């Protein structure tokens, strides 16, 4: 029976990434079926961002395979991955600093969805509409003309989200989308991600903020030294000895236990 099931949207098979003698990702395999939100956690330097680099084509795996809907994309360039339907949001505050907020989203909308063999003289109205919609979706409507370099942290994160969403990706990679934000701001971003996922977009997200990770993820993957420490439902995190010892620590372990017990209000 299972042979007729379509392949998972994303599949990593025995992926290894070495930087000289440092093994940043060590023989890692996992599947991401369409429609899921897979949360990735793990201590600093565990190899989470490196995993994104390898998937998004910014870095090539030393060995192993990455499949997108069964197609081998291990050696694809970032541009090809982007046109294949993947949008990555970077860990650091990235943006085109000298462009306005709107132009940031416009370039992504224009170039991100398909390869432009010869770029046109002006943008189609459909592109501008998509830009409007993306800015509205993240709550940046009205900031169109602001210079990106001068944006406050939250707006920068929202802008990064908007320029990823405007590409209409099937797979969204989020690297610490709420790092450095306040509680209220985190909820704002979580709400956006939830809504995006509800439209059928598959999400792979890295986050240290457990509240965000636990509440959004349908499944969690914890990495340590480039290896899989835990894979399963968020509810199992607090009961896993390794995860508590290596990553969460005792206090955070209890906090996560409370979160997964649906008691978030009290500890939030």
């Amino acid at each position, binding site marked *: 029976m299972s042979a007729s099931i379509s392949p998972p949207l994303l599949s990593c098979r025995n992926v290894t990434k070495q930087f000289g003698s440092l093994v940043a990702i060590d023989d890692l395999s996992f599947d991401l079926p369409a429609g899921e939100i897979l949360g990735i956690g793990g201590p600093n330097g565990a190899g989470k961002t490196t995993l994104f680099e390898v998937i*998004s084509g*910014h870095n090539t795996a030393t060995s192993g395979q990455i499949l997108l809907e069964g197609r081998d994309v291990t050696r694809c*360039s*970032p*541009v090809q991955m*982007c*046109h294949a339907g993947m*949008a*990555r949001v*970077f860990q650091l505050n*990235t*943006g*085109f*600093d*000298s*462009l306005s907020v709107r*132009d940031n989203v*416009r*370039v*992504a909308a*224009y*170039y*991100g*969805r*398909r*390869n*432009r063999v010869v*770029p*046109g*003289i*002006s*943008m189609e109205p459909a592109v501008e509409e998509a830009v409007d919609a993306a800015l*509205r*979706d*993240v*709550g*940046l*409507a*009205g*900031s169109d*003309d602001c*210079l990106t370099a001068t944006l406050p942290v939250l707006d920068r994160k929202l802008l990064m989200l908007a*320029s990823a969403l405007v*590409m209409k990706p099937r797979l969204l990679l989020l690297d610490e989308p709420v790092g450095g934000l306040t509680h209220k701001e985190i909820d*704002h971003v979580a*709400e*956006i991600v939830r*809504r995006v996922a509800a439209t059928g977009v598959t999400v792979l997200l890295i986050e240290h903020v457990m509240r965000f990770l636990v509440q959004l993820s349908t499944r969690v993957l914890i990495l340590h030294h480039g290896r899989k420490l835990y894979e399963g439902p968020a509810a199992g995190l607090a009961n896993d000895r390794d995860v508590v010892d290596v990553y969460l620590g005792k206090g955070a372990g209890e906090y996560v236990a409370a979160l997964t017990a649906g008691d978030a209000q009290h500890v939030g």
Partner: protein
Amino acid sequence: MTARQRDITLCLLFSGLAALLPLVSDVRYTVTQTTFFFIWATVVVQWNLVFGIGGIFSLAQMALFAIGAYTTAMLGYYFGTSMILAMPIGALLAVLFSVALGLACLKLRGPYVALLTLCVAQVLYLTIVNDTDCFTNPPSGCMPLMGGVRGFSRFGDLGFRELLGSGFYVGRYYVGLAILTVAMIVSIIVIRSPMGLAFQALRDNPVYAAARGMDRFKYQLWIFGLSAFFTGLAGSFYAVNTGAVGPVVFSFSHLLFLLSMIIVGGVGTIWGPIVGALLLMFAEEAMRELGDMRDIGMGLILVVCVVLMPRGIVGLFEDLVRWRTARTAQAVPLPRRETV
């Protein structure tokens, strides 16, 4: 009206005004100097596309200019080609050369691009001046293939002498004005089009740009090719206008003079290069009598501009406008972020 339509309208308006100059001034010197302004302004407007918009520190522009000038002169000198035909050929050759140079610079960053492009220009220069073998032997004396130190003269004309008699320089004035106008409009369209946005995105953050579907390879070739056409054409027109082409077009101090125009006017802005060209040519003109002091004066202007206006005159103006709109926006608070 979109920003692009506004800028093009402004450009046509200024051109219209400039077209009146020969009608109101019969000082030949003013008209011919303004023709030179058109030539240098064309070069810096296109250089700004590479350097300001694309953020690629290429110093090849004068070499491209020279290719346009030399091609035109050589075609006229050796084959008697009409200048109307030789000029666009010179421009196209500059495009080919520039695309090849863009390929060579693809893996290089920042100052290394400057070094490589400068080296290429130097190699061209040295090849020309060190060639002492006579290719032909006209009565005027030995002529190396590319003119050697002497260069070319009497290779052709646009025919304005027959047409306009002693007012021939006015004909050239309008050709120069036409070239600058078209070069400027092309620059406005490029900067305010998706392609210009891609150039700027790649300049700001190439890694992020790749993740948003912009291929550095492709756009670097585009930008090198595009900007070379009018640079080459300006060179071709320079050859016809001065009636002589020699290795002096490779002069490094002239290259710096042009670079200063972009910096003073505003790197990466639409109007900066032209404003800078106008200002520095006026300044140079005003200090003509000062001899050596002139270089010091020009240096002083550059230093003052860089220190007081790091984004140039136009950049400063843009910042002021932005600052004012930001203040008015604050005075009337708008409902900014909708709740989701």
